[in-house]
């Protein structure tokens, strides 16, 4: 029996109610350090809401979210980020008016206070780190381009890069391959395998081939509750999962 502090993330009895509708209902799950966890489930199962709750975008009605023993439900969004939780949104959320370089620079985890940002210097450390990340996300030749001119897939990578530069211990990705071409998907899977070292990742994804490719463990949500959890093979064989999700 392990204690909650052994887990990187411990979500327990988490409930959020929007005018009586429970989008997430008594949800509990645990993520180990270094684990890739995939959350699947039909539309409206509460997958995105669960991520919103962890990163503080939505406030929980009850329950607890402990990250390395720290209670996240009482922290402000930017404090949760400082604690080591990074969140990628479903639609690529990048700064269209800035260049790729500037997008990464704004995400660089230094000079996060007002006066820190005023005094921030674009020194060698920053430039090297940006170059390193840009290469990882396949954008090393696009650094001076305005982000709005990137393709959809490149925007997704850029947002992943913006999180990577902060080196979070827990990275949450909401449908990272949605709308990507086959070759982009393969590259993204490769990217995820590379960035997993030293951190945990929670991924929401519908693409089953992609899930099979990356997941250590899969959690299946339905109507805000966990209906099955385990390795992909176990989940795929679960009759409940077949009924509500995979069978469709």
């Amino acid at each position, binding site marked *: 029996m392990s204690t909650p502090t052994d887990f990187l993330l411990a979500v327990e009895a988490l409930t959020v109610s929007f005018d009586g509708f429970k989008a997430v209902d008594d949800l509990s799950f645990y993520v180990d350090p270094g684990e890739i966890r995939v959350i699947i489930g039909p539309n409206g199962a509460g997958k995105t809401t669960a991520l919103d709750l962890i990163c503080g975008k939505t406030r929980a009605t009850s329950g607890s979210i402990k990250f390395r023993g720290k209670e996240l439900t009482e922290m*402000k*969004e*930017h404090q949760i980020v*400082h604690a080591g939780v990074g969140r990628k*949104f479903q639609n690529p959320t990048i700064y269209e*008016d*800035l260049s790729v370089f500037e997008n990464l620079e*704004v995400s660089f985890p230094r000079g996060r206070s007002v006066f820190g940002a005023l005094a921030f210097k674009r020194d060698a450390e920053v430039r090297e780190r940006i170059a390193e990340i840009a290469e990882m996300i396949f954008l090393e030749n696009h650094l001076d381009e305005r982000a709005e001119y990137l393709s959809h897939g490149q925007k997704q990578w850029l947002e992943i890069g913006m999180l990577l530069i902060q080196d979070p211990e827990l990275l949450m990705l909401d449908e990272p391959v949605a709308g990507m071409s086959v070759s982009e998907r393969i590259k993204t899977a490769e990217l995820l395998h590379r960035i997993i070292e030293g951190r945990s990742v929670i991924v929401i994804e519908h693409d089953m081939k992609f899930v099979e490719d990356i997941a250590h463990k899969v959690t299946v949500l339905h109507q805000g509750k966990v209906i099955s959890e385990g390795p992909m093979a176990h989940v795929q064989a679960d009759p409940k999962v077949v009924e509500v999700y995979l069978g469709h």
Partner: protein
Amino acid sequence: MTAFLNSPKKTELIGFVLLAAVILLVLPGITDAFRLNMVGKYLTYAFVAVGLVLCWGSAGILSLGQGIFFGLGGYCMAMFLKLEASTPEATSIQSTPGIPDFMDWNQITALPAFWEPFHSFAFTILAVVAVPAILAFVIGFAMFTRRVGGVYFAIITQAIAAILTILIIGQQGYTGGVNGITDLRTLNGWDIRTDSAKTILYFVNAALLLGVIGLSMAVRSSKLGRILVALRDKEDRVRFSGYDVAAFKIFVFCFAAAISGIGGAMFTLQVGFMSPTFVGIVPSIEMVIFCAVGGRHSLIGAVYGTLLVNFGKTTFSESFPELWLFAMGGLFIAVVMAFPNGLAGLYKSHAEPLLERFFAKAGERRVGSAEAPAPIAE
């Protein structure tokens, strides 16, 4: 040469130098003392417009109440000047000598406590910047930490401008009421009403404006400047990148307020009075129009926009006083519909390519090579 023009930083620097030449050399050279004083008055509004470029252009926070801060800065300066003008000797015919005349008219027999510190010039200088900044902090803290933004924020700033105007008019005995604070004479014994004083004040004002623009350029080119653009675009992404978004908004709002206060103080010094007509909703909206016409993304453009609209206002209202407001409204609609980036946007899309072609040709003749990088689209 084209590479030189292509770098955004360099073009901004050239623009800055040209602007400095226009307001320090050209305008004083072609205008008489009376008109120069008028230009000086317009340039005090430019402080507000420059603040709006940061607040509205960069960070996307539209305030329709910048007159509040302009007015507060102006009132702080006016209080100091009024106290200096209200010596017991000069006011010996009053029933209470030594207090400002309007207080005496309103049966006030002692100087109110909040007027006392304005005997000190050093305090006044500090207050010109600090009073607007503190009020902006209070407003910003109340609004931005509650995530009030966009139209709601604009309406609230407008309401505050209305409240402040009513307060000033209502508290006649403490503020001079609807007439404002008038009959200002000397600054530390120096008569500010003479032509030579007005000329000197014009140059002080111009230098301060250039300083403020320089400072704003530094803010915009820092990481903070890029964070402001980022939060205008995707506020949530900034928040979930570990920034306290409200703190950045409060900062830029306070910064804009502080420089508006400097503009207000210079207005009082050059025009010789301060009244609630410069605090309320109408002047606040006019100042947004100055900024929009000049281009809300361009610090330099905002100054030209202010000058142009005010020249227009003066010329137009001299011949058709009743039509001016319609013209102003039409101008605003035209800017929003036809050229949303204002004069600066027109310059960038039309004049800059022409200049580049010109320099490319000149370079061709000189070097014999036609190597011209493509212009960077904004």
